[in-house]
């Protein structure tokens, strides 16, 4: 007997603890703090990024604690589960109490209790008890009180209740929370976690084609009831699966139907920002008589068979680019025409080296804020593409090339951005545009400068002319000058002005450096101008006359920018000749069977809140006792919630009661209001 009671007692103690308010509030606070972690530590990034950011030690710590996927971590789910348990127990214990309370009228309350209540008022009037009570009954019922009466012999008692819905508000809010959690649980990936823990499925981490993925990383439609997956569909392609991103890997989720992207459309604002984008989808399913065609856009998903298909993002769908590669340092300037595709790479053999050209991105336009005073708000720089050139050892340099020339300082340049790592900003090579609107003249100029033989010939001719004019015909002098010219051009092509500068520092004593530098630049300009004139003559320009301003400016720009080629990093310049833009639509496909349950819980929660805050629960008693030839009336009440509000309400009730019940019982000697309000 004693054992039973003890067992019951300890069970009750546990229930009491788990359902206790202190624990609940503590858990709420712990949950809040735990949630913060996931907002300051970026979630679900590739592990390599975390390793770089935090170093090996902390990376392991965070990984073990599950902080990279905090909201799916076991301890977090346990915390939620505990809160859920606590709330459920609380509701379970309190609901029956509430139900009883709301239906219990407390007709046995004693006169002494009524007198000592905080809200209590007493009258002595000359009136018939039954008549007063009848009027009172009508008054209270019209005011919406539920009323029970009892005749205790020496007195009559009304016990009244109002605002019971407030108590149900508590039930609604807390049951609502439980319902929300149940719905959320249905949509969580707990079954998937259990499968993973059992070893039935494994995450795939390699970057491979979907059909190469192992069965252990695939899920059939019936294997998984709730998920959120994404797929990028290039225009014209079909898919019957999505990828679920889980921690540092993914799973392939098969769908019972296929989705085809017939067309993708995007509109932009003048600022280049996307205005709207939409996809024309075709759903094919054995269950359908004919394929389902629907256009989806952001905020307008397609819901089919419990699967929701969202327009999430967009990107390049493997645009086809026709490229022309211009080699540097090749006097023959043998260009190469190449067909490439975005997200694909081509291998190139440059002399003895094998390099790969990896196309990463293509944009059909690039809009930037326009220059001040240009009269427009935005300018479009035109198409651009991003690619990496990777050498045999695996080191890659990234380039951003614009297809069309861009205006800088009033002149047009083809610009090519270079950077060695993602963290660096791009540095730009500016190729001045020639009168035909192409890069050809610049490239030919560089090829010419790289051609030692031709430079030798030009230098010789130039030197002999110069000496002739100076009336110094010295064989040795000429050789020295030709030698300098050759060497300077060689330095310039190999390392730009910096190479010449460091050469001077090395070989020339300090006092002479400035003079020598000046002289060198003069010589260099001389030979380069001669080479330039040669080039123009080949083009067919009449070099007997003075060069046009444009051609002169071209020379100046070339001198500035040819120097940059030595640091360009790639042995060739990639020109975008034409493109065939293919877009891809980023779709999210989700299955959330718990969604409507969560919404139901939300409605209960909100309704419950308003019931709790804005309905006042109250108990009122009216006692009528004939005493010494008069009728003693005691009106008393208690409010469960806000004491101050209830007191104000009770004062109003007293006033109303006096008006409607006591004064209307206009017996002549109604001296009435002798009561004390406590």
């Amino acid at each position, binding site marked *: 007997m004693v054992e039973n009671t003890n067992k019951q007692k300890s069970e009750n103690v546990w229930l009491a603890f788990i359902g206790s308010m202190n624990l609940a509030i503590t858990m709420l606070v712990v949950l809040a703090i735990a949630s*913060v972690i996931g907002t300051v530590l970026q979630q679900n990034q590739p592990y390599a990024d975390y390793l770089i950011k935090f170093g090996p030690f902390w990376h392991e710590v965070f990984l073990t604690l599950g902080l990279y996927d905090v909201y799916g971590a076991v301890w977090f789910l346990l915390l939620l589960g505990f809160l859920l348990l606590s709330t459920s127990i609380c509701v379970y214990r309190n609901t029956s109490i509430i139900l009883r309370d709301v239906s219990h009228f407390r007709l046995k309350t004693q006169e002494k209790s009524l007198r000592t209540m905080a809200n209590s008022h007493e009258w002595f009037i000359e009136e018939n008890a039954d008549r007063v009570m009848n009027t009172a009954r009508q008054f209270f019922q019209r005011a919406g009180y539920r009323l029970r009466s009892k005749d205790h012999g020496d007195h009559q008692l009304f016990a009244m209740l109002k605002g019971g819905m407030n108590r149900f508000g508590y039930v609604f809010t807390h049951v609502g929370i439980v319902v929300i959690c149940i719905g*959320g649980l249905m949509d969580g990936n707990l079954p998937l976690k259990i499968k993973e823990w059992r070893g039935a499925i494994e995450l795939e981490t390699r970057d491979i084609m979907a059909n190469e993925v192992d069965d252990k990383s695939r899920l059939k439609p019936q294997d998984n009831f709730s998920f959120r997956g994404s797929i990028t569909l290039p225009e014209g392609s079909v898919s019957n699966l999505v990828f679920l991103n889980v921690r540092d890997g993914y799973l392939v989720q098969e769908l019972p139907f296929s989705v085809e992207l017939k067309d993708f459309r995007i509109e932009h604002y003048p600022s280049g920002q996307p205005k709207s984008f939409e996809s024309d989808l075709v759903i094919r399913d054995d269950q359908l008589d004919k394929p389902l065609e629907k256009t989806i856009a952001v905020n307008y998903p397609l819901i089919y068979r419990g699967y929701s298909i969202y327009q999430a993002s967009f990107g390049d769908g493997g645009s086809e680019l026709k490229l022309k590669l211009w080699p540097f340092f090749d006097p023959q300037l043998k260009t190469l025409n190449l067909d490439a595709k975005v997200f694909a790479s081509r291998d190139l053999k440059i002399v003895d080296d094998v390099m790969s050209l990896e196309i990463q991105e293509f944009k059909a336009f690039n809009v930037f804020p326009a220059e001040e005073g240009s009269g427009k708000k935005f300018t479009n720089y035109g198409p651009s593409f991003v690619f990496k050139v990777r050498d045999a050892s695996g080191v890659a340099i990234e380039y951003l090339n614009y297809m069309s020339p861009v205006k800088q300082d009033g002149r047009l340049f083809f610009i090519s951005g270079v950077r060695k790592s993602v963290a660096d900003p791009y540095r730009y090579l500016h190729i001045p545009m020639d009168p035909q609107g192409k890069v050809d003249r610049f490239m030919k100029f560089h090829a010419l400068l790289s051609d030692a033989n031709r430079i030798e010939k030009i230098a010789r001719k130039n030197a002999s002319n110069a000496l002739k004019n100076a009336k110094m015909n010295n064989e040795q002098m000429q050789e020295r000058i030709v030698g300098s010219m050759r060497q300077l051009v060689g330095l310039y092509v190999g390392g730009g002005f910096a190479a010449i500068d460091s050469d001077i520092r090395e070989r020339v004593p300090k006092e002479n450096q400035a003079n020598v530098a000046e002289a060198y630049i003069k010589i260099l300009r001389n030979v380069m101008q001669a080479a330039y004139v040669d080039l123009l003559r080949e083009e067919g320009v009449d070099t007997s006359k003075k060069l046009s301003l444009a051609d002169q400016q071209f020379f100046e720009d070339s001198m500035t920018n040819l120097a940059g080629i030595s640091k360009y990093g790639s042995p060739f310049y990639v020109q975008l000749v034409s493109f065939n833009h293919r877009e891809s639509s980023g779709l999210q496909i989700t299955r959330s069977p718990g*969604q409507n349950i969560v*919404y139901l819980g939300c409605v209960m929660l909100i309704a419950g809140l*308003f019931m709790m805050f804005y309905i006042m629960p109250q108990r009122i008693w009216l006692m009528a006792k004939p005493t010494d030839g008069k009728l003693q009336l005691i009106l008393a009440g208690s409010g469960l919630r806000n004491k101050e509000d209830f007191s104000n309400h009770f004062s*109003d*009730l007293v006033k109303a009661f006096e008006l409607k019940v006591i004064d209307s019982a206009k017996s002549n000697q109604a001296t009435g209001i002798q009561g004390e309000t406590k």
Partner: protein
Amino acid sequence: MSKNQDDALASFERGAWIKRLSWWDYLWALTVILGSVYAYNRYSALMDNYEVGILFGTAIAIIAQGWFWKSFRTLSVAVTVLSLWAIFLYGTDIGVAEQKFLLKYLISSQSATMWMSALFVMATFTYFFATFRDNDFAGKVATHMTWIASAMGSIGLMVRWRESYLVSHEGIGHIPVSNLYEVFILFAVMTALIYLYYEQKYKTRNMGGFVLLIISASVGFLLWYHFEKGAHEIKPLVPALQSYWMKIHVPANFVGYGTFSIAAMLGIAYLMKQRALRINPQGYMAKRLPDLDMLDDVMHKSIALGFAFFTIATVLGAMWAAEAWGGYWSWDPKETWALIVWLNYAAWLHMRLTKGWRGAPLAWWAIIGLFITTFAFLGVNMFLSGLHSYGEL
């Protein structure tokens, strides 16, 4: 005496509120209904079913609000008349704002917003002056300033709505609650209106200075954002924001933010008064600052109201996310911080309702709550990345 008695009686007669509606109330309801019907007829081609629902739902809410709080009717009428006047003056040319006097100096969106800003700041000083010099006239002036500021802020938003349709040929018109700049105006107006309701209900102006402080702070931010970052420019909506949900999710949130701010400022007032009573019960501060019990009550009421609306706003946000992003909950930083704010005030209410806490601890908690709320409102956008970065600095 008789009015009081009527009020007292009214609480005890079911359906009595209908009988207590005056001619003005009926005229009010009629005006709102006519306005909504006109709006529907004129713009229904641009609205989908949900937006029509929102239009008439708003009409009902405005009627109810006007019946519940009579001053609201006056404000709404003033805002409507002046906004329509500004819209009429604009015609189809936004450039007109530089030429027409009324637009340039008073009721174009920018002018109205500047008037709102100036008046809120002036009201702050006036309220404090009224409280500490016990000057009734100054108090009345402060109240009027706050009403007019709220009206100007509302006019600013309404006219900005129209301006967004005029400013470009690209069709970028939208309700002005789409970025940080616009919602700061909304915040200032909402907080002021909620405060004015409590001012009337509790019949005291001593809370005014405190509440106006936070409103002035928001005005300060707004002006900085305008002049340093050019944020007042009307920008187009990104595709994710092109939805009817924005019309209900955002305003509901600001009822929450406004009330939480009020509670925090009153918490400060509470602690100040408590300290004053302890140090010098006969002094200046102890006498002039608002009553402790009243402060406690208003803190509770405003947090309760805010919590209810914040819950609604969070749920609406989840429903919107389900339509736009593929799921009603993604543990996105903004969503998560909304949950944290919610948990914070849920705990606050539990302590008050169930554990019976009162006074200073809850005042401190309300103040801390404001920091949490501010981080969820601003900090997330500024410091954390995520799907919700619509209001980046």
